[in-house]
Protein backbone atom coordinates (compact mmCIF):
# COMPACT_ATOMS: atom_id res chain seq x y z
CA UNK A 1 0.00 0.00 0.00
CA UNK A 2 1.27 3.46 -0.90
CA UNK A 3 2.65 5.57 1.96
CA UNK A 4 1.46 8.74 0.24
CA UNK A 5 -1.48 9.01 -2.12
CA UNK A 6 -2.18 12.39 -3.69
CA UNK A 7 -5.15 12.90 -6.02
CA UNK A 8 -5.96 16.05 -8.00
CA UNK A 9 -4.00 18.25 -5.64
CA UNK A 10 -4.42 21.91 -6.39
CA UNK A 11 -2.96 24.78 -4.44
CA UNK A 12 -3.82 28.39 -5.17
CA UNK A 13 -2.41 31.45 -3.43
CA UNK A 14 -4.40 34.62 -3.41
CA UNK A 15 -2.14 37.64 -3.71
CA UNK A 16 -3.46 41.21 -3.61
CA UNK A 17 -4.43 41.26 -7.26
CA UNK A 18 -4.09 37.82 -8.76
CA UNK A 19 -4.52 34.17 -7.91
CA UNK A 20 -1.29 32.17 -8.22
CA UNK A 21 -1.78 28.52 -9.19
CA UNK A 22 1.12 26.88 -7.32
CA UNK A 23 -0.06 23.31 -8.03
CA UNK A 24 -2.65 22.09 -10.51
CA UNK A 25 -4.24 18.63 -10.52
CA UNK A 26 -1.19 16.83 -9.22
CA UNK A 27 -1.52 13.05 -8.77
CA UNK A 28 1.17 10.79 -7.39
CA UNK A 29 1.80 7.87 -5.12
CA UNK A 30 4.92 7.16 -3.08
CA UNK A 31 5.74 3.74 -1.74
CA UNK A 32 7.27 3.10 1.71
CA UNK A 33 11.09 3.11 2.00
CA UNK A 34 11.54 4.90 -1.29
CA UNK A 35 14.10 7.62 -2.04
CA UNK A 36 12.22 10.29 -3.91
CA UNK A 37 13.05 13.67 -5.35
CA UNK A 38 10.83 16.45 -6.64
CA UNK A 39 12.77 18.45 -9.18
CA UNK A 40 12.06 21.50 -11.23
CA UNK A 41 13.00 25.11 -11.70
CA UNK A 42 12.26 27.80 -9.13
CA UNK A 43 8.52 28.42 -8.82
CA UNK A 44 7.62 24.99 -10.20
CA UNK A 45 5.89 23.98 -6.92
CA UNK A 46 8.55 21.78 -5.25
CA UNK A 47 8.40 23.51 -1.89
CA UNK A 48 4.60 23.75 -2.06
CA UNK A 49 4.26 20.03 -2.57
CA UNK A 50 6.68 19.29 0.27
CA UNK A 51 4.75 21.66 2.55
CA UNK A 52 1.53 19.81 1.73
CA UNK A 53 3.07 16.40 2.35
CA UNK A 54 4.59 17.81 5.55
CA UNK A 55 1.13 18.89 6.77
CA UNK A 56 2.42 22.44 7.06
CA UNK A 57 -0.13 23.65 4.53
CA UNK A 58 -3.41 22.43 3.07
CA UNK A 59 -4.33 22.08 -0.61
CA UNK A 60 -7.07 24.20 -2.15
CA UNK A 61 -8.57 21.05 -3.63
CA UNK A 62 -7.86 17.34 -3.95
CA UNK A 63 -7.21 14.43 -1.64
CA UNK A 64 -4.05 13.63 0.27
CA UNK A 65 -3.55 10.54 2.39
CA UNK A 66 -0.34 9.86 4.29
CA UNK A 67 0.18 6.71 6.33
CA UNK A 68 -3.49 5.93 5.76
CA UNK A 69 -4.59 9.24 7.26
CA UNK A 70 -6.59 11.96 5.52
CA UNK A 71 -4.22 14.77 6.50
CA UNK A 72 -6.38 17.49 4.93
CA UNK A 73 -9.01 16.97 7.61
CA UNK A 74 -6.59 17.41 10.50
CA UNK A 75 -6.89 20.55 12.59
CA UNK A 76 -3.86 22.57 13.72
CA UNK A 77 -3.19 20.58 16.88
CA UNK A 78 -3.72 17.20 15.25
CA UNK A 79 -1.52 18.23 12.33
CA UNK A 80 1.26 18.98 14.81
CA UNK A 81 0.70 15.64 16.53
CA UNK A 82 0.71 13.86 13.16
CA UNK A 83 3.96 15.54 12.14
CA UNK A 84 5.52 14.61 15.47
CA UNK A 85 4.55 10.96 15.07
CA UNK A 86 4.99 10.24 11.37
CA UNK A 87 7.23 12.89 9.82
CA UNK A 88 10.77 14.14 10.04
CA UNK A 89 12.07 17.39 8.57
CA UNK A 90 15.42 18.44 7.16
CA UNK A 91 15.69 22.11 6.31
CA UNK A 92 17.81 23.96 3.81
CA UNK A 93 19.26 26.15 6.58
CA UNK A 94 19.57 23.20 8.98
CA UNK A 95 17.38 25.00 11.56
CA UNK A 96 19.07 23.51 14.60
CA UNK A 97 18.13 25.06 17.94
CA UNK A 98 21.11 27.26 18.76
CA UNK A 99 20.86 26.97 22.54
CA UNK A 100 20.96 23.18 22.48
CA UNK A 101 24.00 20.97 21.89
CA UNK A 102 24.18 18.46 19.05
CA UNK A 103 23.02 15.74 21.45
CA UNK A 104 20.19 17.89 22.82
CA UNK A 105 19.05 18.90 19.33
CA UNK A 106 18.64 15.25 18.42
CA UNK A 107 17.00 14.59 21.78
CA UNK A 108 14.55 17.49 21.42
CA UNK A 109 11.76 15.65 19.50
CA UNK A 110 11.98 12.68 21.87
CA UNK A 111 11.29 14.92 24.87
CA UNK A 112 9.20 17.76 23.52
CA UNK A 113 7.24 15.94 20.83
CA UNK A 114 7.22 12.30 21.85
CA UNK A 115 7.54 11.21 25.44
CA UNK A 116 10.27 8.63 25.10
CA UNK A 117 11.81 7.04 28.21
CA UNK A 118 15.34 8.25 29.11
CA UNK A 119 17.07 4.92 28.51
CA UNK A 120 15.51 4.47 25.09
CA UNK A 121 16.28 8.10 24.27
CA UNK A 122 19.92 7.55 25.05
CA UNK A 123 20.07 4.37 22.95
CA UNK A 124 18.43 5.97 19.92
CA UNK A 125 20.57 9.13 20.07
CA UNK A 126 23.79 7.17 20.54
CA UNK A 127 22.92 4.95 17.57
CA UNK A 128 22.07 7.92 15.35
CA UNK A 129 25.11 9.94 16.40
CA UNK A 130 27.22 6.99 15.34
CA UNK A 131 25.24 6.57 12.12
CA UNK A 132 25.81 10.20 11.09
CA UNK A 133 29.37 10.12 12.45
CA UNK A 134 28.82 12.90 14.96
CA UNK A 135 29.57 11.06 18.22
CA UNK A 136 32.67 13.17 18.85
CA UNK A 137 30.75 16.39 18.33
CA UNK A 138 27.80 15.50 20.56
CA UNK A 139 28.44 18.19 23.16
CA UNK A 140 29.17 21.00 20.75
CA UNK A 141 26.69 23.75 19.98
CA UNK A 142 25.51 24.34 16.38
CA UNK A 143 27.71 27.42 15.98
CA UNK A 144 30.75 25.24 16.75
CA UNK A 145 30.26 22.82 13.85
CA UNK A 146 30.36 23.08 10.03
CA UNK A 147 27.40 23.27 7.64
CA UNK A 148 27.80 19.63 6.59
CA UNK A 149 27.92 18.55 10.21
CA UNK A 150 24.83 20.61 10.97
CA UNK A 151 22.95 18.87 8.19
CA UNK A 152 24.04 15.48 9.53
CA UNK A 153 22.69 16.49 12.93
CA UNK A 154 19.47 17.60 11.23
CA UNK A 155 19.21 14.17 9.57
CA UNK A 156 19.70 12.47 12.91
CA UNK A 157 17.05 14.73 14.50
CA UNK A 158 14.63 13.92 11.68
CA UNK A 159 15.18 10.17 12.11
CA UNK A 160 15.26 9.92 15.88
CA UNK A 161 11.49 9.60 16.22
CA UNK A 162 11.45 6.66 13.77
CA UNK A 163 9.19 8.49 11.30
CA UNK A 164 7.68 6.81 8.27
CA UNK A 165 8.72 9.73 6.12
CA UNK A 166 11.46 12.36 6.10
CA UNK A 167 11.01 15.53 4.06
CA UNK A 168 13.99 17.58 2.98
CA UNK A 169 13.50 20.85 1.14
CA UNK A 170 16.69 21.68 -0.76
CA UNK A 171 18.84 19.92 1.87
CA UNK A 172 22.06 20.51 -0.02
CA UNK A 173 21.51 24.07 -1.19
CA UNK A 174 23.82 25.56 1.42
CA UNK A 175 26.51 22.93 1.13
CA UNK A 176 29.49 22.52 -1.16
CA UNK A 177 29.32 19.82 -3.83
CA UNK A 178 31.36 17.23 -1.93
CA UNK A 179 29.41 17.73 1.30
CA UNK A 180 26.13 17.73 -0.63
CA UNK A 181 26.90 14.30 -2.08
CA UNK A 182 27.96 13.06 1.34
CA UNK A 183 24.68 14.26 2.86
CA UNK A 184 22.61 12.60 0.12
CA UNK A 185 24.61 9.41 0.53
CA UNK A 186 23.97 9.54 4.25
CA UNK A 187 20.24 10.03 3.69
CA UNK A 188 20.22 7.02 1.36
CA UNK A 189 22.13 4.95 3.92
CA UNK A 190 19.60 5.95 6.57
CA UNK A 191 16.83 4.88 4.24
CA UNK A 192 18.59 1.53 3.84
CA UNK A 193 19.24 1.14 7.56
CA UNK A 194 15.91 2.35 8.94
CA UNK A 195 13.50 1.79 6.04
CA UNK A 196 12.40 5.41 6.16
CA UNK A 197 11.01 7.08 3.06
CA UNK A 198 13.01 10.15 2.06
CA UNK A 199 11.52 12.86 -0.12
CA UNK A 200 13.68 15.80 -1.08
CA UNK A 201 13.46 18.66 -3.45
CA UNK A 202 16.38 20.01 -5.40
CA UNK A 203 17.31 21.83 -8.58
CA UNK A 204 20.86 20.47 -8.54
CA UNK A 205 21.08 18.00 -11.44
CA UNK A 206 24.00 16.09 -9.87
CA UNK A 207 22.02 15.55 -6.71
CA UNK A 208 18.87 14.60 -8.62
CA UNK A 209 20.67 11.63 -10.11
CA UNK A 210 20.98 10.15 -6.60
CA UNK A 211 17.18 9.81 -6.30
CA UNK A 212 15.52 6.51 -7.17
CA UNK A 213 12.17 8.06 -8.01
CA UNK A 214 12.11 11.49 -9.62
CA UNK A 215 8.98 13.59 -10.04
CA UNK A 216 9.45 16.47 -12.45
CA UNK A 217 7.45 19.63 -11.85
CA UNK A 218 6.91 22.58 -14.13
CA UNK A 219 4.59 25.53 -13.55
CA UNK A 220 2.76 23.65 -10.82
CA UNK A 221 2.09 20.58 -12.93
CA UNK A 222 3.64 17.14 -12.65
CA UNK A 223 5.32 16.64 -16.02
CA UNK A 224 7.07 13.32 -15.49
CA UNK A 225 8.13 10.47 -13.25
CA UNK A 226 11.33 8.51 -13.57
CA UNK A 227 12.16 5.38 -11.67
CA UNK A 228 15.75 4.13 -11.45
CA UNK A 229 16.17 0.58 -10.42
CA UNK A 230 13.02 0.52 -8.38
CA UNK A 231 12.49 1.36 -4.78
CA UNK A 232 14.06 -0.62 -2.09
CA UNK A 233 11.87 -2.39 0.42
Amino acid sequence: MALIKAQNITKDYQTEEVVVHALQDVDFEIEPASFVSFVGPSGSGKTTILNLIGCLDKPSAGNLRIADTDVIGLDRKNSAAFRGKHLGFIFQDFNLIPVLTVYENIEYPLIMVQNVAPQERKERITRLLAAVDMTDQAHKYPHQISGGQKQRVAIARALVTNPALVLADEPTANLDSQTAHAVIALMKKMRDDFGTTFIFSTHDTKIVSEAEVIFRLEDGRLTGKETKGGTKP
Partner: protein
Amino acid sequence: MRNLFKIAIRNLIRYKRRTLLTASLITIGVVFVLVFVSVTGSFKAMMIGQITDSMLGHLQIHRKGYVASIDNLPLNLNMKPQAYAKVAAALSATPAVESFSPRIKFGGMFSNFAETTSIRLNGINPDQEFRTVPLLTSRISEGKKTISRGEILVPTLLAKGLKVKLGDAVVIVATNADGSVNGKQFIVSGILESATGPGGRDGYIHIEDAAEVLRMPDAEVSEVAVRLKDFSHLPAVVKQLESKVADEVSKEGRPMFEVHSWEQLSPFYHIARMIDLMTFFIKIMLIAIVLISIMNVMIMAVYERIREIGTIAAIGTLPGKIRSMFIIEGLCLGVVGAIIGDLIGIAVVMIINLIGIHFDFAQQKGMLLTAALQPADLLTVSVIVIIVAVAASLQPAFKASKMEPIEALRHV
Protein backbone atom coordinates in the same frame (compact mmCIF):
# COMPACT_ATOMS: atom_id res chain seq x y z
CA MET B 1 9.06 20.63 32.35
CA ARG B 2 12.76 20.49 33.23
CA ASN B 3 13.62 20.74 29.54
CA LEU B 4 11.32 23.72 29.08
CA PHE B 5 13.20 25.45 31.91
CA LYS B 6 16.53 24.42 30.40
CA ILE B 7 15.65 25.89 27.01
CA ALA B 8 14.16 29.04 28.58
CA ILE B 9 17.21 29.66 30.76
CA ARG B 10 19.60 29.06 27.88
CA ASN B 11 17.66 31.45 25.69
CA LEU B 12 17.90 34.07 28.42
CA ILE B 13 21.65 33.50 28.67
CA ARG B 14 21.89 33.64 24.88
CA TYR B 15 20.86 37.31 24.95
CA LYS B 16 23.00 38.20 27.95
CA ARG B 17 22.95 41.96 27.68
CA ARG B 18 19.21 42.20 27.18
CA THR B 19 18.49 39.73 29.95
CA LEU B 20 20.84 41.60 32.27
CA LEU B 21 19.23 44.93 31.47
CA THR B 22 15.71 43.63 32.01
CA ALA B 23 16.60 41.78 35.20
CA SER B 24 18.41 44.90 36.45
CA LEU B 25 15.36 47.03 35.78
CA ILE B 26 13.17 44.63 37.73
CA THR B 27 15.77 44.41 40.50
CA ILE B 28 15.97 48.19 40.82
CA GLY B 29 12.18 48.37 40.97
CA VAL B 30 12.03 45.67 43.67
CA VAL B 31 14.80 47.35 45.71
CA PHE B 32 13.08 50.73 45.45
CA VAL B 33 9.74 49.31 46.59
CA LEU B 34 11.26 47.30 49.44
CA VAL B 35 13.27 50.26 50.77
CA PHE B 36 10.26 52.54 50.44
CA VAL B 37 7.98 50.02 52.16
CA SER B 38 10.46 49.42 54.98
CA VAL B 39 11.27 53.10 55.62
CA THR B 40 7.72 54.40 55.35
CA GLY B 41 6.38 51.38 57.21
CA SER B 42 8.84 51.98 60.04
CA PHE B 43 8.07 55.71 60.04
CA LYS B 44 4.36 54.95 60.16
CA ALA B 45 4.78 52.44 62.96
CA MET B 46 6.88 54.90 64.97
CA MET B 47 4.41 57.69 64.35
CA ILE B 48 1.46 55.57 65.41
CA GLY B 49 3.48 54.33 68.38
CA GLN B 50 4.19 57.90 69.49
CA ILE B 51 0.55 58.88 69.26
CA THR B 52 -0.92 55.79 70.88
CA ASP B 53 1.79 55.19 73.49
CA SER B 54 2.18 58.74 74.68
CA MET B 55 -1.35 60.08 74.53
CA LEU B 56 -4.30 58.22 73.08
CA GLY B 57 -3.86 54.58 73.94
CA HIS B 58 -4.76 51.95 71.35
CA LEU B 59 -8.46 52.51 71.82
CA GLN B 60 -10.80 54.47 74.04
CA ILE B 61 -14.22 53.91 75.56
CA HIS B 62 -16.54 56.85 76.23
CA ARG B 63 -20.08 57.40 77.21
CA LYS B 64 -22.24 57.50 74.09
CA GLY B 65 -22.10 60.95 72.45
CA TYR B 66 -18.94 62.08 74.23
CA VAL B 67 -16.66 61.94 71.18
CA ALA B 68 -19.08 64.03 69.13
CA SER B 69 -18.67 66.83 71.73
CA ILE B 70 -15.09 66.04 72.71
CA ASP B 71 -13.82 69.57 71.98
CA ASN B 72 -16.11 70.90 74.72
CA LEU B 73 -15.00 68.24 77.24
CA PRO B 74 -18.61 67.91 78.41
CA LEU B 75 -18.76 66.90 82.08
CA ASN B 76 -22.42 65.91 81.75
CA LEU B 77 -21.33 63.06 79.42
CA ASN B 78 -18.92 61.52 81.89
CA MET B 79 -19.54 57.97 83.08
CA LYS B 80 -21.15 57.54 86.47
CA PRO B 81 -19.12 55.33 88.84
CA GLN B 82 -21.44 52.35 88.26
CA ALA B 83 -21.10 52.74 84.50
CA TYR B 84 -17.30 52.92 84.73
CA ALA B 85 -17.34 49.81 86.93
CA LYS B 86 -19.11 47.94 84.12
CA VAL B 87 -16.56 49.12 81.56
CA ALA B 88 -13.68 48.21 83.89
CA ALA B 89 -15.19 44.76 84.42
CA ALA B 90 -15.55 44.22 80.67
CA LEU B 91 -11.95 45.28 80.08
CA SER B 92 -10.61 43.15 82.92
CA ALA B 93 -12.40 40.16 81.42
CA THR B 94 -10.83 40.72 78.00
CA PRO B 95 -7.55 38.77 77.72
CA ALA B 96 -6.30 40.89 74.83
CA VAL B 97 -6.28 44.01 77.03
CA GLU B 98 -2.95 44.71 78.69
CA SER B 99 -4.02 47.73 80.74
CA PHE B 100 -6.53 50.54 80.84
CA SER B 101 -6.61 53.98 82.38
CA PRO B 102 -9.65 56.03 83.41
CA ARG B 103 -9.37 59.77 82.81
CA ILE B 104 -11.37 62.78 83.89
CA LYS B 105 -10.98 65.43 81.25
CA PHE B 106 -12.07 68.99 81.76
CA GLY B 107 -11.28 72.53 80.77
CA GLY B 108 -10.19 75.09 83.31
CA MET B 109 -8.23 78.24 84.03
CA PHE B 110 -4.56 78.08 84.86
CA SER B 111 -3.15 80.91 86.97
CA ASN B 112 0.32 81.70 88.27
CA PHE B 113 -1.26 84.36 90.51
CA ALA B 114 -0.17 87.06 88.08
CA GLU B 115 -1.57 85.82 84.78
CA THR B 116 -4.32 83.41 83.79
CA THR B 117 -4.90 81.27 80.71
CA SER B 118 -7.03 78.32 79.65
CA ILE B 119 -5.90 74.72 80.04
CA ARG B 120 -7.22 71.23 79.26
CA LEU B 121 -6.70 68.90 82.15
CA ASN B 122 -6.50 65.14 82.40
CA GLY B 123 -7.15 63.64 85.78
CA ILE B 124 -5.29 60.33 85.78
CA ASN B 125 -4.39 57.43 87.97
CA PRO B 126 -0.59 57.54 87.43
CA ASP B 127 0.04 53.81 87.72
CA GLN B 128 -2.71 52.90 85.26
CA GLU B 129 -1.92 55.80 82.92
CA PHE B 130 1.79 55.08 82.67
CA ARG B 131 1.05 51.40 81.97
CA THR B 132 -1.46 52.31 79.28
CA VAL B 133 0.55 55.10 77.60
CA PRO B 134 4.13 54.20 78.53
CA LEU B 135 5.73 56.94 76.43
CA LEU B 136 3.98 59.64 78.47
CA THR B 137 6.95 59.72 80.83
CA SER B 138 9.27 60.43 77.88
CA ARG B 139 7.27 63.58 77.22
CA ILE B 140 8.11 64.93 80.69
CA SER B 141 11.08 67.08 79.78
CA GLU B 142 11.70 68.41 83.29
CA GLY B 143 10.76 67.17 86.75
CA LYS B 144 9.55 63.86 88.15
CA LYS B 145 8.49 61.10 85.85
CA THR B 146 5.31 60.55 87.82
CA ILE B 147 2.60 62.53 89.49
CA SER B 148 1.23 62.61 93.02
CA ARG B 149 -1.74 64.30 94.63
CA GLY B 150 -1.42 68.08 94.66
CA GLU B 151 0.97 68.10 91.72
CA ILE B 152 0.49 69.15 88.12
CA LEU B 153 2.34 68.39 84.88
CA VAL B 154 2.21 71.65 82.93
CA PRO B 155 2.38 71.70 79.12
CA THR B 156 5.56 73.39 77.95
CA LEU B 157 3.61 76.03 76.02
CA LEU B 158 1.92 77.27 79.17
CA ALA B 159 5.05 76.95 81.26
CA LYS B 160 6.98 79.16 78.86
CA GLY B 161 4.12 81.61 78.32
CA LEU B 162 3.42 82.11 82.00
CA LYS B 163 7.07 81.68 83.05
CA VAL B 164 6.22 78.81 85.38
CA LYS B 165 9.04 76.66 86.75
CA LEU B 166 9.29 73.39 88.62
CA GLY B 167 8.12 73.78 92.22
CA ASP B 168 6.04 76.88 91.50
CA ALA B 169 2.53 77.06 92.94
CA VAL B 170 -0.29 77.49 90.46
CA VAL B 171 -4.07 77.51 90.73
CA ILE B 172 -6.56 75.58 88.66
CA VAL B 173 -10.08 76.95 88.51
CA ALA B 174 -12.83 74.94 86.80
CA THR B 175 -16.55 75.02 86.34
CA ASN B 176 -18.27 71.96 87.78
CA ALA B 177 -21.05 69.93 86.21
CA ASP B 178 -23.62 71.81 88.28
CA GLY B 179 -22.32 75.19 87.05
CA SER B 180 -20.51 76.23 90.24
CA VAL B 181 -16.83 77.18 90.17
CA ASN B 182 -14.07 75.64 92.23
CA GLY B 183 -10.33 76.11 92.47
CA LYS B 184 -7.34 74.27 93.88
CA GLN B 185 -3.66 75.04 94.25
CA PHE B 186 -1.07 72.72 92.71
CA ILE B 187 2.69 72.47 92.70
CA VAL B 188 4.35 72.18 89.28
CA SER B 189 6.09 68.81 89.36
CA GLY B 190 6.96 68.50 85.69
CA ILE B 191 6.98 70.21 82.29
CA LEU B 192 5.32 68.21 79.58
CA GLU B 193 6.19 68.22 75.87
CA SER B 194 3.24 67.96 73.52
CA ALA B 195 2.81 64.72 71.65
CA THR B 196 1.48 66.38 68.54
CA GLY B 197 3.58 69.49 68.22
CA PRO B 198 3.25 73.12 69.28
CA GLY B 199 -0.14 74.17 70.57
CA GLY B 200 -0.72 71.31 72.99
CA ARG B 201 -2.48 72.59 76.10
CA ASP B 202 -3.02 69.31 77.94
CA GLY B 203 -1.91 69.21 81.55
CA TYR B 204 -2.07 66.25 83.93
CA ILE B 205 -3.19 66.03 87.54
CA HIS B 206 -4.08 63.13 89.80
CA ILE B 207 -7.57 61.73 89.18
CA GLU B 208 -8.57 62.31 92.82
CA ASP B 209 -7.52 65.97 92.54
CA ALA B 210 -9.62 66.25 89.38
CA ALA B 211 -12.62 64.81 91.21
CA GLU B 212 -12.01 67.24 94.04
CA VAL B 213 -11.75 70.29 91.76
CA LEU B 214 -14.93 69.22 89.99
CA ARG B 215 -16.64 68.45 93.32
CA MET B 216 -17.38 64.86 92.34
CA PRO B 217 -18.04 62.68 95.38
CA ASP B 218 -16.84 59.75 93.30
CA ALA B 219 -14.76 60.10 90.16
CA GLU B 220 -16.89 60.36 87.04
CA VAL B 221 -14.71 59.16 84.22
CA SER B 222 -14.67 60.99 80.86
CA GLU B 223 -12.81 58.32 78.97
CA VAL B 224 -11.04 55.03 79.41
CA ALA B 225 -7.82 54.64 77.42
CA VAL B 226 -6.96 51.01 76.63
CA ARG B 227 -3.67 49.34 75.72
CA LEU B 228 -3.67 45.96 73.98
CA LYS B 229 -1.15 43.18 74.34
CA ASP B 230 -0.89 42.95 70.55
CA PHE B 231 -1.55 46.08 68.53
CA SER B 232 -2.22 44.06 65.38
CA HIS B 233 -5.35 42.65 67.03
CA LEU B 234 -6.88 46.12 67.33
CA PRO B 235 -9.80 45.75 64.88
CA ALA B 236 -10.84 42.42 66.42
CA VAL B 237 -10.63 43.73 69.98
CA VAL B 238 -12.62 46.85 69.09
CA LYS B 239 -15.36 44.59 67.74
CA GLN B 240 -15.15 42.36 70.77
CA LEU B 241 -15.44 45.28 73.18
CA GLU B 242 -18.23 46.86 71.16
CA SER B 243 -20.23 43.69 71.49
CA LYS B 244 -19.44 43.47 75.21
CA VAL B 245 -20.53 47.02 76.03
CA ALA B 246 -23.44 46.94 73.61
CA ASP B 247 -25.53 45.16 76.23
CA GLU B 248 -25.30 48.20 78.50
CA VAL B 249 -28.24 50.45 77.63
CA SER B 250 -29.64 53.57 79.23
CA LYS B 251 -33.12 53.87 80.71
CA GLU B 252 -34.25 55.07 77.29
CA GLY B 253 -32.90 51.87 75.77
CA ARG B 254 -30.01 53.56 73.97
CA PRO B 255 -26.46 52.17 74.09
CA MET B 256 -24.50 53.67 76.97
CA PHE B 257 -20.97 53.41 75.61
CA GLU B 258 -18.99 53.87 72.45
CA VAL B 259 -15.66 52.29 71.52
CA HIS B 260 -13.21 54.07 69.23
CA SER B 261 -9.86 52.92 67.95
CA TRP B 262 -7.02 55.44 67.71
CA GLU B 263 -7.73 55.85 63.98
CA GLN B 264 -11.10 57.40 64.75
CA LEU B 265 -9.65 59.76 67.32
CA SER B 266 -6.48 61.11 65.71
CA PRO B 267 -6.03 63.10 62.51
CA PHE B 268 -2.67 61.34 62.13
CA TYR B 269 -4.60 58.34 60.91
CA HIS B 270 -5.03 60.20 57.61
CA ILE B 271 -1.25 60.59 57.32
CA ALA B 272 -0.91 56.85 57.91
CA ARG B 273 -3.49 56.29 55.18
CA MET B 274 -1.56 58.56 52.84
CA ILE B 275 1.57 56.50 53.49
CA ASP B 276 -0.40 53.36 52.63
CA LEU B 277 -1.68 55.05 49.49
CA MET B 278 1.83 56.11 48.45
CA THR B 279 3.04 52.55 49.02
CA PHE B 280 0.19 51.31 46.85
CA PHE B 281 1.14 53.66 44.02
CA ILE B 282 4.80 52.73 44.33
CA LYS B 283 3.74 49.09 43.91
CA ILE B 284 1.70 50.07 40.86
CA MET B 285 4.84 51.68 39.44
CA LEU B 286 6.75 48.47 40.08
CA ILE B 287 4.04 46.50 38.28
CA ALA B 288 4.31 48.90 35.33
CA ILE B 289 8.11 48.57 35.24
CA VAL B 290 7.96 44.77 35.29
CA LEU B 291 5.06 44.60 32.85
CA ILE B 292 6.61 46.91 30.27
CA SER B 293 10.16 45.56 30.52
CA ILE B 294 9.21 41.89 30.36
CA MET B 295 6.59 42.38 27.68
CA ASN B 296 9.13 44.31 25.63
CA VAL B 297 11.84 41.68 26.02
CA MET B 298 9.46 38.80 25.29
CA ILE B 299 8.05 40.50 22.18
CA MET B 300 11.63 40.93 21.01
CA ALA B 301 12.38 37.29 21.86
CA VAL B 302 9.42 36.05 19.82
CA TYR B 303 10.26 38.32 16.89
CA GLU B 304 13.90 37.24 16.82
CA ARG B 305 13.09 33.55 17.05
CA ILE B 306 10.30 33.28 14.48
CA ARG B 307 12.23 30.73 12.40
CA GLU B 308 13.05 28.71 15.49
CA ILE B 309 9.37 28.75 16.44
CA GLY B 310 8.58 27.58 12.90
CA THR B 311 11.13 24.78 13.20
CA ILE B 312 9.92 23.43 16.52
CA ALA B 313 6.30 23.75 15.39
CA ALA B 314 7.11 21.93 12.13
CA ILE B 315 8.72 19.00 13.90
CA GLY B 316 5.57 18.56 15.95
CA THR B 317 5.89 20.66 19.12
CA LEU B 318 2.36 21.35 20.27
CA PRO B 319 1.25 24.99 20.62
CA GLY B 320 0.88 24.61 24.40
CA LYS B 321 4.55 23.71 24.78
CA ILE B 322 5.67 26.61 22.61
CA ARG B 323 3.51 28.88 24.76
CA SER B 324 4.99 27.42 27.96
CA MET B 325 8.53 27.96 26.66
CA PHE B 326 8.04 31.72 26.43
CA ILE B 327 6.00 32.01 29.63
CA ILE B 328 8.77 30.21 31.51
CA GLU B 329 11.30 32.68 30.11
CA GLY B 330 9.23 35.54 31.54
CA LEU B 331 8.80 33.63 34.80
CA CYS B 332 12.56 33.10 35.09
CA LEU B 333 13.22 36.79 34.48
CA GLY B 334 10.68 37.68 37.16
CA VAL B 335 12.09 35.17 39.66
CA VAL B 336 15.69 36.29 39.08
CA GLY B 337 14.72 39.97 39.35
CA ALA B 338 12.68 39.35 42.49
CA ILE B 339 15.35 37.26 44.26
CA ILE B 340 18.22 39.65 43.48
CA GLY B 341 15.96 42.60 44.31
CA ASP B 342 15.02 41.01 47.64
CA LEU B 343 18.67 40.38 48.54
CA ILE B 344 19.80 43.89 47.58
CA GLY B 345 16.71 45.35 49.29
CA ILE B 346 17.60 43.56 52.54
CA ALA B 347 21.19 44.77 52.23
CA VAL B 348 20.11 48.38 51.63
CA VAL B 349 17.78 48.28 54.64
CA MET B 350 20.63 46.91 56.76
CA ILE B 351 22.90 49.71 55.53
CA ILE B 352 20.22 52.31 56.35
CA ASN B 353 20.02 50.93 59.88
CA LEU B 354 23.81 50.88 60.19
CA ILE B 355 24.08 54.50 59.06
CA GLY B 356 21.22 55.48 61.40
CA ILE B 357 18.73 57.98 60.04
CA HIS B 358 17.37 60.39 62.64
CA PHE B 359 14.24 62.49 62.30
CA ASP B 360 12.00 64.71 64.38
CA PHE B 361 8.36 63.93 64.91
CA ALA B 362 6.32 66.60 66.65
CA GLN B 363 8.23 67.46 69.82
CA GLN B 364 10.24 64.25 69.69
CA LYS B 365 13.69 65.16 68.45
CA GLY B 366 16.27 62.88 66.92
CA MET B 367 14.15 59.76 66.71
CA LEU B 368 16.12 56.91 65.13
CA LEU B 369 14.43 55.38 62.12
CA THR B 370 14.60 51.62 62.40
CA ALA B 371 13.76 50.35 58.92
CA ALA B 372 12.50 46.80 58.99
CA LEU B 373 11.53 44.45 56.19
CA GLN B 374 8.83 42.01 57.12
CA PRO B 375 8.86 38.58 55.44
CA ALA B 376 5.34 39.37 54.30
CA ASP B 377 6.63 42.47 52.44
CA LEU B 378 9.32 40.42 50.69
CA LEU B 379 6.81 37.75 49.81
CA THR B 380 4.18 40.21 48.58
CA VAL B 381 6.60 42.16 46.37
CA SER B 382 8.16 38.96 44.99
CA VAL B 383 4.78 37.39 44.25
CA ILE B 384 3.60 40.59 42.54
CA VAL B 385 6.75 40.68 40.37
CA ILE B 386 6.50 37.01 39.42
CA ILE B 387 2.78 37.14 38.63
CA VAL B 388 3.22 40.31 36.55
CA ALA B 389 6.23 38.77 34.78
CA VAL B 390 4.14 35.76 33.79
CA ALA B 391 1.21 37.98 32.80
CA ALA B 392 3.51 40.13 30.64
CA SER B 393 4.77 37.00 28.84
CA LEU B 394 1.30 35.76 27.99
CA GLN B 395 0.64 37.91 24.93
CA PRO B 396 4.01 37.19 23.24
CA ALA B 397 3.74 33.52 24.23
CA PHE B 398 0.26 33.20 22.71
CA LYS B 399 1.51 34.98 19.59
CA ALA B 400 4.35 32.46 19.28
CA SER B 401 2.09 29.47 19.81
CA LYS B 402 -0.40 30.68 17.21
CA MET B 403 2.20 31.14 14.48
CA GLU B 404 1.70 29.04 11.39
CA PRO B 405 4.89 26.98 10.99
CA ILE B 406 4.97 27.48 7.24
CA GLU B 407 4.92 31.28 7.61
CA ALA B 408 7.38 31.22 10.48
CA LEU B 409 9.81 29.10 8.45
CA ARG B 410 9.63 31.57 5.57
CA HIS B 411 10.52 34.47 7.88
CA VAL B 412 13.83 36.07 7.05
